[in-house]
């Protein structure tokens, strides 16, 4: 695997800058995504990792332009190959979604039409975006089903979604996302409901597809272990902000943010003899209302200066962390994370 260290927005297929998404609630405005910046390049898999309430899914939905009232994108740019998706209007977005940028959802049953055969919905998806004939569309649908590892694709095209297993349905969703050869696929926890052997099959197919097609992938998950095995780079989110971003080796082996280190430590490891796991105290609570570092109330390194929002600075080329102590306690954090 080639190491990717520096990322200028120019060579990125998708470049998100200072994206901010807010929701009006009865308790006031909730900033679910707070000035998030990320890039993903051709043939690259970026993992976005976070727990409930981190804003990882809202980030994905925002990029797709799928935020509805009471939510709204209130700031930032979403550049897909140099074009800002926030400036092209709803009709422009309809052209782009499912064609140049596609999404795979956690629950395939909610994104597949229950009363259309797999083949019919795939043909529709192709014809909606490209001037090709029905026969050509069917052929392409069959090819892409075969590519995601579906046995006897011709037969499966005549099936309805409910006739397939969960793993097969998720493969179909991925096939539909791939159908129009998008530049970017955003996958939101697509293997969370699946069994481990089926999940492993899908992760394997996705890596193969990315290598073959050069599609850029943003893989949203709560599971650091999946990101470690699948992605090239990772962004860790907490309470609406990216707190750390870097290559997999940076984030997993040399975490610079105390939250990342705490998360890594709470994943059971092979090479650790303790039966009890180190734990991050407390819970996310209403961290969204904290103006400074939102992790400060749970952090063991907290300083008075954490009351101001920390800058998202580089600790090494291509490795950023939003923490005032980032880099200074690198050794301790690595030990905390890996025992």
């Amino acid at each position, binding site marked *: 695997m080639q190491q990717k260290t520096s990322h200028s927005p120019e060579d990125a297929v998708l470049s998100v800058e200072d994206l901010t998404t807010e929701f009006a609630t009865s308790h006031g405005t909730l900033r679910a995504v707070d000035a998030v910046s990320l890039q993903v390049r051709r043939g690259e898999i970026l993992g976005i990792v976070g727990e409930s309430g981190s804003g990882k899914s809202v980030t994905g939905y925002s990029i797709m332009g799928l935020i509805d009232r009471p939510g709204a994108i209130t700031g930032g740019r979403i550049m897909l190959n140099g074009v800002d998706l926030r400036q092209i209007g709803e009709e422009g977005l309809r052209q782009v979604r499912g064609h140049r940028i596609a999404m795979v959802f956690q629950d395939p049953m909610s994104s597949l039409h229950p009363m259309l055969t797999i083949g019919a919905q795939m043909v529709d998806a192709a014809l909606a975006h490209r001037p090709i004939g029905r026969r050509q569309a069917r052929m392409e649908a069959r090819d892409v089903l075969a590519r995601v590892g579906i046995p006897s694709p011709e037969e499966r095209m005549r099936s309805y979604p409910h006739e397939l297993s969960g793993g097969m349905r998720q493969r179909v969703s991925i096939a539909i996302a791939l159908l129009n050869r998008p530049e970017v696929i955003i996958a939101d926890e697509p293997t969370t409901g699946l*069994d481990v*052997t089926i999940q492993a*099959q899908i*992760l*394997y197919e996705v890596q193969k597809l990315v290598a073959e097609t050069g599609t850029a992938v943003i893989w949203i998950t709560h599971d650091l272990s999946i990101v*470690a095995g699948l992605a090239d780079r990772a962004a860790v989110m907490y309470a609406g902000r990216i707190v750390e971003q870097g290559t997999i080796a940076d984030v997993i082996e040399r975490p610079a943010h105390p939250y990342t*280190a705490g998360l890594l430590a*709470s994943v059971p490891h092979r090479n650790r003899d303790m039966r009890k*796991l180190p734990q991050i105290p407390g819970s996310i609570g209403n961290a969204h209302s904290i103006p400074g570092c939102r992790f400060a109330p749970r952090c063991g390194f907290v300083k008075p200066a954490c009351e101001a929002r920390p800058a998202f600075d580089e600790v090494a080329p291509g490795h950023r962390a939003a923490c005032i102590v980032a880099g200074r306690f690198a050794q301790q954090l690595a030990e*905390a994370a890996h025992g």
Partner: protein
Amino acid sequence: MAEQIRSEQILPEQKGPERTALLTIDKVGMSFDLGRRGFLGLGPRRRVRALDDVSLEIGHGEILGLVGESGSGKSTLGRLIVGLYRPSEGQIRFARQATRHEGPHAVDLGAQIVFQNPSGSLNPRQRVRDIIAEPLIVHKADHDIAARVGELMRQVGLPPDFAERRPSEMSGGQAQRVGIARALALEPELIVCDEPISALDVSIQAQVLNLFADIQEQTGCSYLFISHDLPVVERLSHRVAIMYLGRIVEIAATSELFSRPAHPYTRALIASAPRLEAKKLSFRPVEGEIPSPIDPPRGCHFHPRCPLATDRCRSERPEAREVSPGHLSACHLDM
């Protein structure tokens, strides 16, 4: 070390001493009737064989991990043990001191269960205080109930003012602590934990797992810890049993099972589990779907997905064989 990342003391090795059996599961089978299909329901009667000739022992103070994917029967086994179902075949026996928990509810009192979905397994209209007190009231325990509820809440790390809350006013981790307190109320000798942390966030999972370890240390009770998460089971259990489509395919002490897995399915599972240490995925995952338990494959249930399957595997059911002392594997092949 920073206070935030508390390293707990190191517990003794997981192997544990030879234990006497607390619970013996003897050739248990469980079938569910799915009714008839077809026009006017005149089609053939369909049955799911959720458990097929399962035998197992859980020792006093032992944590037995039970791992399997969908349709493996792991939850059915847990529910049989706490008496939510009666087995269609075979027996489940508790060895207990004659003085403890006699009478018609013996099985129900000896084992308690913690469910996967914390909010779904708590009555939304009850307050925490009443949820935890309910087993004490139902089973006419002669405790001072209010005092016992307070004690249980302390034991699971819930602040006293939570007594008045309802499940909707708590996070998933807090609700799961209520579920654990309820299970502990009658001092069970065995707690069946049915995927108790899989609905929780990663940082909360570690907190609840540590709570399970604490409780086991304090009370000496046994756990049947049901999970699909191999690293979690490896961390917590003394022994691990692997199930596939209603049968136990392998059982061994934890370190033995993970260092020398004998059954091809166990090997596939271990290879499939994502791990932080794994860089890019470097293996070819086991192929094929998990077959339906309504019509499982003949012979060895795993043979359609097994890269090593022979004709014998396709026709003859493999019996559990001892591959080393205490390590059983149900596979025809010599691994």
